[in-house]
Protein backbone atom coordinates (compact mmCIF):
# COMPACT_ATOMS: atom_id res chain seq x y z
CA UNK A 1 0.00 0.00 0.00
CA UNK A 2 3.03 2.26 0.52
CA UNK A 3 3.61 2.44 -3.26
CA UNK A 4 -0.07 3.27 -3.82
CA UNK A 5 0.18 6.14 -1.34
CA UNK A 6 3.32 7.40 -3.07
CA UNK A 7 1.32 7.67 -6.32
CA UNK A 8 -1.46 9.57 -4.52
CA UNK A 9 1.16 11.97 -3.18
CA UNK A 10 2.53 12.40 -6.68
CA UNK A 11 -0.96 13.28 -8.01
CA UNK A 12 -1.16 15.98 -5.36
CA UNK A 13 2.37 17.25 -6.07
CA UNK A 14 1.58 17.35 -9.79
CA UNK A 15 -1.52 19.42 -9.03
CA UNK A 16 -3.87 16.83 -10.56
CA UNK A 17 -5.81 16.78 -7.29
CA UNK A 18 -6.04 19.72 -4.93
CA UNK A 19 -5.88 17.64 -1.77
CA UNK A 20 -6.61 14.02 -0.92
CA UNK A 21 -7.27 11.86 2.15
CA UNK A 22 -7.89 8.18 2.73
CA UNK A 23 -11.53 7.53 3.60
CA UNK A 24 -13.87 4.55 3.99
CA UNK A 25 -13.02 1.21 5.57
CA UNK A 26 -9.26 1.62 5.20
CA UNK A 27 -9.42 4.98 6.98
CA UNK A 28 -11.45 3.32 9.74
CA UNK A 29 -8.81 0.58 9.94
CA UNK A 30 -6.32 3.26 11.06
CA UNK A 31 -8.41 3.63 14.24
CA UNK A 32 -10.15 0.30 14.85
CA UNK A 33 -9.81 -3.43 14.15
CA UNK A 34 -9.13 -4.33 10.48
CA UNK A 35 -12.29 -4.16 8.38
CA UNK A 36 -12.83 -6.36 5.33
CA UNK A 37 -12.82 -4.29 2.14
CA UNK A 38 -11.60 -4.48 -1.43
CA UNK A 39 -11.28 -0.76 -2.15
CA UNK A 40 -9.13 2.09 -1.02
CA UNK A 41 -11.52 5.05 -1.02
CA UNK A 42 -9.87 8.41 -1.46
CA UNK A 43 -11.60 11.76 -1.01
CA UNK A 44 -10.27 14.33 -3.41
CA UNK A 45 -10.71 17.95 -4.30
CA UNK A 46 -10.63 18.18 -8.04
CA UNK A 47 -9.28 21.35 -9.55
CA UNK A 48 -11.84 22.79 -11.91
CA UNK A 49 -11.98 25.64 -14.32
CA UNK A 50 -15.02 27.91 -14.08
CA UNK A 51 -17.93 26.77 -16.23
CA UNK A 52 -16.62 23.20 -16.58
CA UNK A 53 -18.23 20.11 -15.07
CA UNK A 54 -16.36 18.22 -12.34
CA UNK A 55 -14.77 15.15 -13.87
CA UNK A 56 -12.35 12.41 -12.86
CA UNK A 57 -10.87 12.44 -16.37
CA UNK A 58 -7.72 14.46 -15.48
CA UNK A 59 -6.92 12.01 -12.66
CA UNK A 60 -7.49 8.99 -14.88
CA UNK A 61 -5.45 10.56 -17.70
CA UNK A 62 -2.46 11.24 -15.42
CA UNK A 63 -2.69 7.73 -13.94
CA UNK A 64 -2.75 6.29 -17.44
CA UNK A 65 0.47 8.18 -18.19
CA UNK A 66 1.93 6.59 -15.08
CA UNK A 67 0.85 3.14 -16.33
CA UNK A 68 -2.33 2.58 -14.28
CA UNK A 69 -5.54 1.95 -16.16
CA UNK A 70 -9.05 2.67 -14.88
CA UNK A 71 -11.29 -0.35 -14.47
CA UNK A 72 -15.00 0.35 -13.96
CA UNK A 73 -15.23 2.72 -11.01
CA UNK A 74 -11.66 2.36 -9.79
CA UNK A 75 -8.02 2.38 -10.84
CA UNK A 76 -5.70 -0.38 -9.72
CA UNK A 77 -2.55 1.33 -8.44
CA UNK A 78 0.24 -1.06 -7.53
CA UNK A 79 -2.24 -3.87 -6.86
CA UNK A 80 -4.75 -1.79 -4.88
CA UNK A 81 -8.11 -0.78 -6.41
CA UNK A 82 -8.42 2.92 -5.63
CA UNK A 83 -11.73 4.71 -5.88
CA UNK A 84 -11.50 8.47 -6.15
CA UNK A 85 -14.47 10.22 -4.58
CA UNK A 86 -14.76 13.97 -5.22
CA UNK A 87 -16.05 15.72 -2.10
CA UNK A 88 -19.80 15.84 -2.60
CA UNK A 89 -21.23 17.99 0.20
CA UNK A 90 -20.30 20.24 3.12
CA UNK A 91 -19.62 17.29 5.43
CA UNK A 92 -17.23 15.49 3.07
CA UNK A 93 -15.50 18.77 2.18
CA UNK A 94 -14.95 19.53 5.86
CA UNK A 95 -13.80 15.93 6.48
CA UNK A 96 -11.13 16.35 3.83
CA UNK A 97 -9.95 19.73 5.04
CA UNK A 98 -9.73 18.41 8.64
CA UNK A 99 -7.99 15.13 7.65
CA UNK A 100 -5.05 14.07 9.79
CA UNK A 101 -1.50 13.92 8.50
CA UNK A 102 -0.15 10.44 9.29
CA UNK A 103 2.56 8.11 8.09
CA UNK A 104 2.09 4.71 6.54
CA UNK A 105 5.32 2.72 6.50
CA UNK A 106 7.29 6.01 6.69
CA UNK A 107 5.30 7.51 3.80
CA UNK A 108 3.29 10.65 4.57
CA UNK A 109 -0.41 10.58 3.83
CA UNK A 110 -3.69 11.90 5.18
CA UNK A 111 -6.59 10.05 6.73
CA UNK A 112 -10.08 11.26 7.58
CA UNK A 113 -10.53 11.83 11.33
CA UNK A 114 -12.61 9.16 13.14
CA UNK A 115 -15.22 11.74 14.16
CA UNK A 116 -15.86 12.55 10.48
CA UNK A 117 -15.86 8.89 9.49
CA UNK A 118 -18.54 8.30 12.09
CA UNK A 119 -20.58 11.30 10.86
CA UNK A 120 -20.34 10.13 7.24
CA UNK A 121 -21.40 6.61 8.26
CA UNK A 122 -24.42 8.05 10.07
CA UNK A 123 -25.24 10.12 7.01
CA UNK A 124 -24.97 7.27 4.47
CA UNK A 125 -26.61 4.85 6.96
CA UNK A 126 -26.32 1.65 4.93
CA UNK A 127 -26.46 -1.38 7.26
CA UNK A 128 -22.69 -1.92 6.94
CA UNK A 129 -22.06 1.76 7.71
CA UNK A 130 -24.04 1.52 10.92
CA UNK A 131 -22.13 -1.60 11.98
CA UNK A 132 -18.87 0.22 11.31
CA UNK A 133 -20.10 3.32 13.12
CA UNK A 134 -20.69 1.18 16.20
CA UNK A 135 -17.21 -0.28 15.97
CA UNK A 136 -15.75 3.22 15.69
CA UNK A 137 -17.74 4.32 18.72
CA UNK A 138 -16.48 1.30 20.68
CA UNK A 139 -12.84 1.23 19.65
CA UNK A 140 -11.62 4.55 18.24
CA UNK A 141 -10.23 7.28 20.43
CA UNK A 142 -12.43 10.24 19.58
CA UNK A 143 -12.72 13.76 20.87
CA UNK A 144 -16.24 13.74 22.36
CA UNK A 145 -16.67 17.54 22.29
CA UNK A 146 -15.41 17.77 18.71
CA UNK A 147 -17.74 14.94 17.65
CA UNK A 148 -20.72 16.49 19.38
CA UNK A 149 -20.21 19.87 17.69
CA UNK A 150 -19.66 18.27 14.32
CA UNK A 151 -22.81 16.14 14.56
CA UNK A 152 -24.85 19.16 15.63
CA UNK A 153 -23.51 21.25 12.75
CA UNK A 154 -24.55 18.62 10.24
CA UNK A 155 -27.88 17.66 11.80
CA UNK A 156 -26.77 14.15 12.78
CA UNK A 157 -27.19 14.26 16.57
CA UNK A 158 -30.48 12.38 16.47
CA UNK A 159 -29.04 9.62 14.28
CA UNK A 160 -26.14 9.27 16.70
CA UNK A 161 -28.49 9.02 19.72
CA UNK A 162 -30.56 6.42 17.89
CA UNK A 163 -27.49 4.33 17.08
CA UNK A 164 -26.35 4.44 20.71
CA UNK A 165 -29.83 3.52 21.91
CA UNK A 166 -29.90 0.48 19.62
CA UNK A 167 -26.45 -0.60 20.75
CA UNK A 168 -27.65 -0.95 24.35
Amino acid at each position, binding site marked *: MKQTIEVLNQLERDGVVGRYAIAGAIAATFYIEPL*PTYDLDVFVIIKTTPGKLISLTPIYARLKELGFKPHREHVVIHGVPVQFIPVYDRLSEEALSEARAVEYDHTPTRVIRPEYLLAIMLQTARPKDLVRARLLAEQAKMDAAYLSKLLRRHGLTRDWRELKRRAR
Partner: protein
Amino acid sequence: MKRYAQQRKLLNRLIRAKAARRRELAALPVEEKIGIVIALQRLQSGILRSTGRRSRSPWRIAP
Protein backbone atom coordinates in the same frame (compact mmCIF):
# COMPACT_ATOMS: atom_id res chain seq x y z
CA MET B 1 -33.49 -21.53 32.53
CA LYS B 2 -31.15 -22.92 35.23
CA ARG B 3 -30.24 -25.66 32.81
CA TYR B 4 -28.39 -23.21 30.57
CA ALA B 5 -26.86 -21.04 33.27
CA GLN B 6 -23.40 -22.59 32.88
CA GLN B 7 -23.52 -22.34 29.11
CA ARG B 8 -24.50 -18.70 29.33
CA LYS B 9 -21.61 -18.01 31.70
CA LEU B 10 -19.24 -19.67 29.25
CA LEU B 11 -20.75 -17.73 26.34
CA ASN B 12 -20.33 -14.43 28.20
CA ARG B 13 -16.71 -15.30 28.87
CA LEU B 14 -16.19 -16.02 25.18
CA ILE B 15 -17.85 -12.73 24.20
CA ARG B 16 -15.60 -10.83 26.63
CA ALA B 17 -12.54 -12.59 25.20
CA LYS B 18 -13.62 -11.70 21.68
CA ALA B 19 -14.08 -8.06 22.66
CA ALA B 20 -10.60 -8.04 24.22
CA ARG B 21 -9.12 -9.57 21.06
CA ARG B 22 -10.79 -6.88 18.94
CA ARG B 23 -9.36 -4.17 21.16
CA GLU B 24 -5.92 -5.76 20.72
CA LEU B 25 -6.39 -5.81 16.95
CA ALA B 26 -7.47 -2.17 16.99
CA ALA B 27 -4.24 -1.25 18.78
CA LEU B 28 -1.94 -2.90 16.20
CA PRO B 29 0.19 -0.73 13.90
CA VAL B 30 -1.79 0.14 10.76
CA GLU B 31 0.72 -1.67 8.52
CA GLU B 32 -0.06 -4.93 10.37
CA LYS B 33 -3.79 -4.23 10.14
CA ILE B 34 -3.56 -3.84 6.36
CA GLY B 35 -1.89 -7.28 6.30
CA ILE B 36 -4.96 -8.62 8.13
CA VAL B 37 -7.31 -6.85 5.65
CA ILE B 38 -5.53 -8.70 2.82
CA ALA B 39 -5.78 -12.00 4.71
CA LEU B 40 -9.53 -11.33 5.16
CA GLN B 41 -9.87 -10.64 1.43
CA ARG B 42 -8.17 -13.98 0.65
CA LEU B 43 -10.37 -15.81 3.13
CA GLN B 44 -13.57 -14.23 1.81
CA SER B 45 -12.55 -14.77 -1.79
CA GLY B 46 -11.78 -18.45 -1.12
CA ILE B 47 -15.15 -19.02 0.56
CA LEU B 48 -17.08 -17.25 -2.22
CA ARG B 49 -15.30 -19.14 -4.99
CA SER B 50 -15.68 -22.49 -3.25
CA THR B 51 -19.43 -21.91 -3.11
CA GLY B 52 -19.61 -20.95 -6.79
CA ARG B 53 -20.01 -17.22 -6.20
CA ARG B 54 -18.07 -14.46 -7.87
CA SER B 55 -15.46 -12.70 -5.88
CA ARG B 56 -13.15 -9.75 -6.36
CA SER B 57 -9.43 -10.46 -6.32
CA PRO B 58 -7.52 -9.90 -3.11
CA TRP B 59 -4.93 -7.11 -3.31
CA ARG B 60 -1.75 -8.32 -4.95
CA ILE B 61 0.70 -6.45 -2.82
CA ALA B 62 3.09 -6.80 0.02
CA PRO B 63 1.14 -5.12 2.86
